[in-house]
């Protein structure tokens, strides 16, 4: 009866596309040239959107905004593996996911301008609204997955959260539910190294975030989050597994928040410029470009065209957003309950 090992866990790490634009051919997922171009154009569009949002915020035309700069591959690569019928539970930093799923861009501006109507998800999508309280969306994802399983629907759920989000109790309770009920859900952690000013190492002492999945009896995998192919492949595998009824997966996308936490933050207070510099050559857009260039899918003209298209789309969205009237103050009451209460009615009249 000596001491013995009763459980062994190995945490995998997946890399496909490196900083030079080389891919591991064996691991490379099957993606057509068109798919890859679509991916690239989504990266460009998201980056253009993000840039514009920051500018609009500076001009006072949007409220506090959370930039996605640097995290585009994690967002677009993962969303690319989802279908419109799948359910998505974002946090507040998933503009790339919304854009990939085809969410109207003007509505994103509308939301960030402080208007609830911007997160009235169109009927053909199942994206839950931006979730502000960190980690709280995670049990919702497990719940939706429970409903999918119960109804026997062929859908998966994807839920997004950050490295900081893994510390919340709701992360724990949500993942545990998914493990116990073997639910069709993919937990996508964008480990961007920072939760506002708290670095990843102070967030948790575990060597990886991926390994947290084993506490709940399912697989966790770490991927290079700036490698769109690795993110896509890990998500696609996890979504397929989910749809086959084989349960949940946690994916840790190792990436970096290149910007301040939000426009209300000043990252210079707590992190070194040098650290940001280290991540610049790891840029997710850059490396896909290098890959495509080598494959003959990219040239300067194509780049210009992609940028032009993105700019036009974003210009159009800004214009559309600006054309929308101010919300009616009565709207405050309209959606509290299916029908306003007598007391609300009175308050509405007093407006």
């Amino acid at each position, binding site marked *: 009866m000596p001491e013995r090992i009763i459980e062994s866990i190995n945490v995998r790490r997946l890399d496909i596309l490196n900083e030079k634009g080389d891919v591991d051919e064996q691991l490379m997922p099957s993606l057509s040239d068109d798919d890859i171009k679509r991916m690239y154009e989504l990266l460009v569009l998201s980056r253009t959107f993000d840039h514009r949002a920051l500018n609009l915020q500076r001009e006072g035309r949007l409220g506090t905004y959370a930039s996605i700069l640097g995290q585009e591959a994690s967002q677009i690569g993962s969303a690319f593996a989802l279908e419109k019928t799948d359910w998505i539970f974002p946090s507040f930093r998933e503009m790339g996911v919304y854009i990939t799923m085809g969410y109207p861009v003007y509505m994103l501006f509308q939301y960030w301008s402080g208007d*609830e109507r911007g997160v009235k*998800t169109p009927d053909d999508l199942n994206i839950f609204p931006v979730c502000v309280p960190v980690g709280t969306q995670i049990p*919702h994802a497990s719940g*939706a997955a429970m*409903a999918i399983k*119960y109804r026997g629907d062929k859908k998966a759920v994807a839920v997004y959260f950050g490295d900081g989000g893994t510390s919340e109790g709701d992360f724990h*309770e949500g993942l545990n539910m998914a493990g116990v009920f073997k639910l069709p859900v993919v937990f996508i952690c964008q480990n961007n190294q920072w939760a506002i000013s708290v670095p990843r190492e102070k967030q948790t002492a575990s060597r990886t975030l991926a390994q947290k999945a084993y506490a709940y009896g399912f697989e966790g995998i770490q991927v290079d989050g700036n490698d769109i192919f690795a993110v896509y492949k890990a998500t696609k595998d996890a979504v397929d597994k989910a749809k086959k009824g084989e349960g949940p997966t946690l994916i840790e996308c190792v990436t970096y928040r290149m910007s301040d936490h939000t426009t209300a933050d000043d990252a210079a207070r707590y992190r070194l410029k040098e650290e940001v510099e280290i991540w610049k050559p790891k840029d997710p857009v850059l490396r896909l470009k290098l890959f495509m260039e080598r494959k003959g899918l990219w040239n300067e003209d194509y780049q210009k065209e992609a940028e032009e298209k993105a700019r036009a789309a974003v210009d159009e969205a800004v214009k559309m957003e600006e054309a929308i009237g101010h919300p009616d103050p009565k709207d405050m009451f309209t959606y*509290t309950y299916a029908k306003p209460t*007598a007391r609300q009615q009175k308050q509405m009249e007093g407006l």
Partner: protein
Amino acid sequence: MPKMNMVQAINLALREEMQRDRDVVVLGEDVGKDGGVFRISEGLVEEFGTERIMDTPLAESGIVGTAIGMAVYGLKPVAEIQFMGFIYPAIDQIFSHAARIRSRTRGRFTCPVVIRTPYGAGIKAPELHSESTEALFCHMPGVKVVVPSSPYNAKGLLISSIRDPDPVIFLESTRLYRLIKEDVPEGEYTIPLGKARVVQEGRDVTIISWGSMLHRALQAVTGIDAEVIDLMTLNPFDEETVYKSVKKTGRVVIVHEAPKTCGFGAEISASISEDAMLYLKAPIIRVTGYDAVMPLPKLEDYYMPAAERIKKAIDEIMKY
């Protein structure tokens, strides 16, 4: 008509609603084979299977959070929190999400979840098994709060709650679970949310209460021409019925077992002061639990409003 206690009536409501609508599912701790610690879901897992009666891990925020996800997807989950004292970890999910989903998405998503939980003192249970913090949930727009006081209205109110398109907190007095039996019809009937019930008409004083304390109030009014109102729904509460009575009697006693400060009695009193003060002949009195931590069983009886305390309050305002 079968005589039932509240446990049986709630069980019947769940059973019938589950038979009627496949989207109704139940989840919580020990709701399956065990039938819930109060046996509310007794026999349901046998009838509906573990896909519809789900024993969950021990995680209240997780229970409510997953119920929210299910509700948003289109199901009608009825989540059980084992005791009201254990709902606190789920308050974030209730306040930050269940209550706001319709509002946040301008109606694209809704959250028709029912959260049932036993509340209140009177069964000499351990710490945190006797909480009565209904007022907290009444401060959150987007949530409804329902408290039945008898088997008959428990069934009708629960059916309405399950069918309601918005989140409902449904509070069941542990003390009442097996205290009263009354006729409870089989088959569906609903009692509308947001409407109070005049249990007894009277001219001299209006007694307002709900749940378990209603019965204490009824004990206290013998020999007094009191109008007794059972609010049944606290949020939104039936202002019309309350004001009508106040206008008639001019005297109000509110009875609840929660601590006085910021209990729901405060809201009723303040509403009356605002909208019907000119009809008042006397101060509005609240007879409530004390502003102290709910004690363990040995002092429980001293804590809860007794019929005498209520009677004393009535006598006092009858002097005006």
